[in-house]
């Protein structure tokens, strides 16, 4: 199984988790043409798409996906907010598990400025994947994760240095701090979890101005000793339960 990054960041987020037979779309926040292209136009092979929340950098292609016959799983608030009526829109609840083709998915609540879900995903090929984005902390720890797809939006140090408290950008700064995951909180989440089964840590949704990809990668590598990547368009990484 492999993970393909179609887009990551405030310009749009979308990922494909797939092997020869099974495909799961994670987020629909980029132009649908790009998603189709990344799927090699094999839309029929898509088992479903999971969407964290309504903001357009995560949800803008829901309509097209549904029209193409893809089942889209998200929270009821997010589905209602799309204004679309379709049997392809599947409302899911926190801490309940659902079957999407050969994938098992389990959403859980996150802390953003609108209702937002993270997802646990299980497939025999890649093992357990956790997907966390757009939250200022994770309320949960996770058992036996093989692959982490986790937001590392900003560094508190960079944010404080650039737009310190009292600067004219206080509003933006406060919004970032109460809706996105800092590298510091990302590291503490990884620290308290058992990473003995973990093969990959993929850092996503890095801010254009408040992050530093190389530094973030090093920090996580040093702390975890795992294979760490920073998501960028076109990146493909093997997501295998057993690395060898």
């Amino acid at each position, binding site marked *: 199984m492999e993970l393909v990054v179609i887009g990551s960041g405030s310009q749009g987020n979308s990922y494909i988790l797939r092997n020869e037979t099974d495909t799961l779309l994670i987020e629909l926040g980029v132009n649908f043409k790009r998603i189709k292209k990344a799927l090699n136009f094999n839309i029929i092979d898509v088992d479903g798409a999971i969407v964290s929340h*309504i903001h357009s950098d995560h949800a803008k292609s829901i309509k097209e996906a549904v029209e193409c016959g893809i089942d889209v*799983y998200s929270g*009821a*608030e997010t*589905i*209602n*907010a799309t204004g679309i*009526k*379709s*049997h*392809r*829109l*599947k*409302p*899911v*609840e926190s*801490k*309940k*598990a*659902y*079957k999407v083709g050969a994938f*098992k998915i*389990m959403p*859980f609540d996150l*802390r953003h400025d*609108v*209702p937002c879900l993270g997802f*646990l*995903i*299980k497939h025999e090929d890649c093992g*357990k994947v956790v997907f966390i984005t757009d939250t*200022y*902390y*994770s*309320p*949960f*720890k*996770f*058992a*036996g994760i093989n692959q982490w797809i986790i937001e590392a939006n900003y560094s*508190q140090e960079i944010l404080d240095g650039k737009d310190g*408290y*009292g*600067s*004219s950008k*206080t*509003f933006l*700064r*406060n*919004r970032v*701090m*109460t809706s996105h995951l800092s590298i510091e*909180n990302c590291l*503490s*989440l990884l620290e*308290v*979890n058992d990473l003995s089964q973990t093969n990959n840590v993929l850092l996503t949704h890095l801010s254009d101005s408040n992050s530093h990809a190389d530094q973030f990668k090093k920090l996580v590598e040093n702390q975890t000793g795992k294979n760490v990547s920073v998501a960028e368009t076109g990146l493909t990484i093997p997501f295998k339960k057993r690395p060898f």
Partner: protein
Amino acid sequence: MSTETKKTTEVAKKKQTDITSTVLKKVEAFQQAGELRLPKNYSPENALKSAQLMLSETTDKNGKAVMESCSRTSIANALLKTVVWGLSPNKGQVYFIPYAGKLECSVSYTGNIAIAKRYAGLKRIKANCVMKGDDFEFEVDNESGRKKIVHHKQTLESIGSEKIEGAYAVYELEDGTIDVEIMSFSQISKSWDQRQGNGLSPAHKNFPDQMAMKTVLNRACKLLVRTSDDSILYDDEDKNIDHTKEDVKHDVKQNANKDTIDIDDVEYEEVDDEVKSSEKTPESKDKTFEKPAKEKSENQEDPNQAKAF
């Protein structure tokens, strides 16, 4: 009221009374030991009573009563500060701000004037705004270094320009000294940028002249108080607290990375179809995303009803 809510309210009330009586006892102990002299016309009992009433109605950003969400020590400290400064919450001289599970006591500009009058020999103080088109001139006295307004002429036209160029506060001390604190609008703006919160408040946007006068009054009074003999009482009042950062830190400490969840522990559910779900959650739909639309439709209904009558 459900039994549970009733119980919580009772607990909060009891906590409130406990804290105020503890603070009162402490104040009395300070007074008896000669460590604290309160102004003659000031009643700590009344101040604490009004603080108690105010706190019972104050909620934090999550809508939770501060008496429950803030630590006991921080509430006691906030109340103690109020009394030590000799301020009255019911006169708007202090207000209470909850953040990161703590309660902070913040002095308003009227509170600053009261403190300056009490402890720093302030006799009178008056602030004015300088508007675009005003004829305003000030000078610095070579010997004393004090500023002096030479003249300030306003016209209805200049007041109406609504463009603030600065503000000043003229004050007289008990010993007859007259001085003035002057701030340009860029200095005032910088001071507003230090404010907690998301940008300028509606008050700053709609009544910038009033807010500019408050800013210059605060600056004048704080300088006076800090140089007075009782300045020690006033030490940490002006520190800038980064409330959002503190709140986030507190939230993360309290709530992050707690329970472990495992996908293996949960059996599959059948997904409800879309129609069923929107029937199930009409309230959350309105609350979360379509509030403005809903309010609009309600407003539209009102005039129709009026016509019907």
